[in-house]
């Protein structure tokens, strides 16, 4: 086991327990060194999951998640080629996400959550995923394909896991699924899937007692994207939205909070605005009601400034004004398709200067999840 933050022995107070899994190296898929899986050509080599797992681990370890009531009590990470520096300075590789290791990690995570009903569980998986219709997503572990005739022996049936987790005492659970959701009929028709549910269904007295929030990195049937040698697009957007994009109000409490839904909407807005990838996260609530995951203090909202026509954007010197004072500016020629900045919530005016001409946009209210600004030139 590789706990980046180990749970304290005997601690029964409620808290947040986090399990992060990034599967980069698939032994039997392209790039792997094992005997190739028969339909391995349907898969591509991965790079992002380790970066994504690491990025989220660092973010959680940095104390960036601020729940109104609960502290983070444990963080466990599985990754293909990640190393972890222990307290004594020794660097050790983290557990490789084979099915056996994933299964054991889930069992530990379940046990931690089962201690107290007020526990909050967070599960993150980044790697290959398959969808085979309603309620049938498979999370492929590193040794997927090891059994030639039963490759799904080394996959997790996500919906089965989700349903099984309703038997856990922890009443609040979040699942972050950073996977492609495409269907691969060649594979799913040839082999019995969709995998092992890991937590066999133990039906609770009332399934509605548990609140489960799910955030999918992409919409049903679509792919999830990433950049080379960087975390996935979703992992980056997820972390970014906690700067303020996911801030929303609750009717019963003052202040700004993040729920699975506001996170999903903020990540979707972010991904659409920066236009890097055609991907839109989705959230669902298979059980119970949405719940608060994070409480914001002071926050900023992402702003994307563009010219109309778009071609003028790179040629413009931009500036941002508040109450007649210049707050921020950007010189022309950055090569970006927009000027992106983060601003506290409020009302601003944006200007674009092209040569000697200054164009002023309308006064813009900046508030979550994101403010797109267009200046006609």
């Amino acid at each position: 086991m590789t706990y980046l933050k180990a749970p304290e022995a005997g601690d029964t107070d409620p808290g947040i327990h986090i399990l992060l899994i990034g599967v980069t190296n698939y032994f039997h898929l392209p790039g792997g060194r094992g005997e190739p899986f028969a339909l391995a050509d349907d898969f591509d080599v991965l790079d992002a999951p380790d970066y994504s797992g690491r990025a989220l681990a660092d973010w959680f370890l940095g104390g960036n998640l601020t729940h109104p009531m609960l502290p983070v009590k444990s963080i466990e990470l599985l990754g293909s080629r990640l190393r972890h520096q222990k307290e004594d300075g020794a660097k050790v590789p983290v557990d490789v996400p084979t099915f056996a290791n994933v299964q054991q990690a889930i069992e530990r995570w379940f046990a931690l959550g089962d201690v107290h009903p007020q526990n909050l569980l967070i599960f993150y998986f980044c790697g290959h995923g398959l969808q085979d219709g309603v309620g049938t997503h498979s999370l492929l572990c590193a040794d997927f394909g090891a059994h030639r005739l039963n490759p799904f022996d080394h996959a997790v049936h996500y919906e089965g896991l989700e349903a099984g987790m309703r038997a856990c005492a922890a009443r609040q659970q979040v699942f972050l699924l950073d996977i492609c959701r495409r269907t691969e009929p060649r594979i799913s028709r040839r082999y019995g899937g969709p995998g092992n549910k890991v937590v066999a269904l133990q039906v609770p007295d009332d399934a509605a007692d548990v609140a489960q929030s799910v955030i999918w990195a992409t919409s049903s049937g679509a792919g999830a994207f990433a950049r080379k040698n960087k975390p996935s697009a979703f992992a980056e957007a997820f972390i970014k939205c906690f700067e303020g994009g996911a801030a929303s109000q609750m009717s019963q409490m003052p202040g700004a909070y993040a729920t699975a839904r506001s996170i999903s909407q903020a990540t979707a807005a972010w991904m659409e605005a920066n236009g890097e990838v055609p991907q839109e996260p989705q959230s669902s609530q298979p059980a119970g009601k949405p719940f608060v995951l994070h409480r914001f203090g002071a926050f900023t909202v992402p702003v994307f400034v563009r010219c109309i026509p778009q071609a003028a954007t790179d040629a413009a010197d931009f500036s941002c004004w508040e109450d007649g004072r210049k707050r921020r500016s950007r010189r022309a020629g950055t090569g970006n398709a927009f000027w992106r900045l983060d601003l506290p919530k409020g009302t601003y005016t944006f200007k674009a200067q092209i040569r000697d001409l200054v164009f002023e946009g309308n006064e813009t209210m900046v508030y979550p999840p994101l403010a797109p600004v267009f200046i006609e030139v």
Partner: protein
Amino acid sequence: MAVVHLFVEPRQPPVGRVGVQLALASISVLDSREAQLGRRVKEGLVVPMSTQAAPARVDLPPGTYVVSVDLPSGEQLTRPLLVTGLEPGPIKLVLSARESPVARESARPRAVRVGRIVLDGADAPRRVRVRTTDSADSVAQASPEDATKRPVSTLSVGRRMARPPPREAALIESAPVPDERPRMMDVQASGLYYLGRMSGTFHVSNVRSWLTHLTQRANSGRRMPGARTESGQYVDVAALEGPDMGPRQGGDFREGAQREYVAQRYACSLFPDGRISGLAVVPWHWAARRDGHGHSPVSIFEDWDGMKRRWNLRLAINDGSTSSVLSYLTQGDLGNAQLLLKDSLAFLMSKAENPYAAAAGGYVLIHSKDDDIDHGDWPWWLRNLASWFPWLPDAQILLATLLLQRRRLADRIEPGLSERYERRISYARLLLERAMRAGIPIYSVGFRLLIENLEILSEMQRSRRPNAAEEGFPVRDALKVVRDLGSCITSVQPMTVLDLGELWISVP
């Protein structure tokens, strides 16, 4: 105080008889001097998604506000609103729905166009598919930056891994809409067993046989007159009286399995060669409500996906309120589904009039915490729905879900049932068997619950719990069939629509 009239403009004008959907809005104060977001002053405002319908009306004191609207598609719209108090009349605020991939998945054909081929250094050439929108101006283009943006599953090679050989680049052209539209056939499946008789000649393992039988029926069915659109066609489906579908008041959900009753109606889309490409489960009729679409319960749309070179079938309920409730639920927004349902719970509870709408309400109830429902007798209401309408698979699935997944509430349908394990499981098995016999769940959310419940029974069977399975209802076979059919649900729609084109090829 100023009066604000709030409208939501749908993404595109409705085609066919599609009713006005409802969205839910909230209004918050926006004060730039506050460190935190302003308080929410209004919430749960029901806004019609049409500029022609009566708007939502709200009174606001002078101030600066943010109006936020959650659409049933999962999209969220926000707009600032300045109220000075000096306005001469009502303030008209129109929020326009934009293009959204989520909405597109659920409600529109997935038009995809090739952007361009990109190269990432020495890596393999990749093809980039870019979703397009309705407007030519807003077609997304792969930018030079895209050279380093790839799906998670196509990332570059890690340091310790072998680099795979490059693949050949492939350019996929979007195919134009074929001139010949698919034939849309009305199949009245009374007497057409879902997968054959559940006992005796039970053959749930033979999906192919079912498909063959269905194809014969579809080819001899009645053609539904469709209207051509630029991207395909649509059909307003006329209401029909189904065979003996009235409520069997006094019926009992515990009745034995000998009662077999199928009353399903399908809209089948046929390839030119007569094979079925898609199937939508269609309600026979729909009791008219305030939006008055009783004569045409649903509209069916079939649009061409040029990238995948196939037709996409979509079914819309013309009762805007119920369709909104279902859409919120399908998008995982239970809170808004509950809010909207409160407005129409009385109607839904009058199940004798419209069991389909009642089942839609039932799905919200079965997912809700008991404390959140004003009517404490709702489990009994689900019991009656299942008893009165044995032909409605969704009704059976709902009650089975209550028995299997919400044990604590079982006492409200029979005293002491929560503690009588064997009896409870026996009832659930009976209900699931009847659901399988009655046909395909009309709502896609029912499909997921059917799979979940069969898995629970299958697990119990594996652990040799008594009454989990009996002869005549092989749970694991049923689960396999339901999974096979579930794999044909390729888009997120509230109603069950199966893409059977690939099942033809894949089922032995």
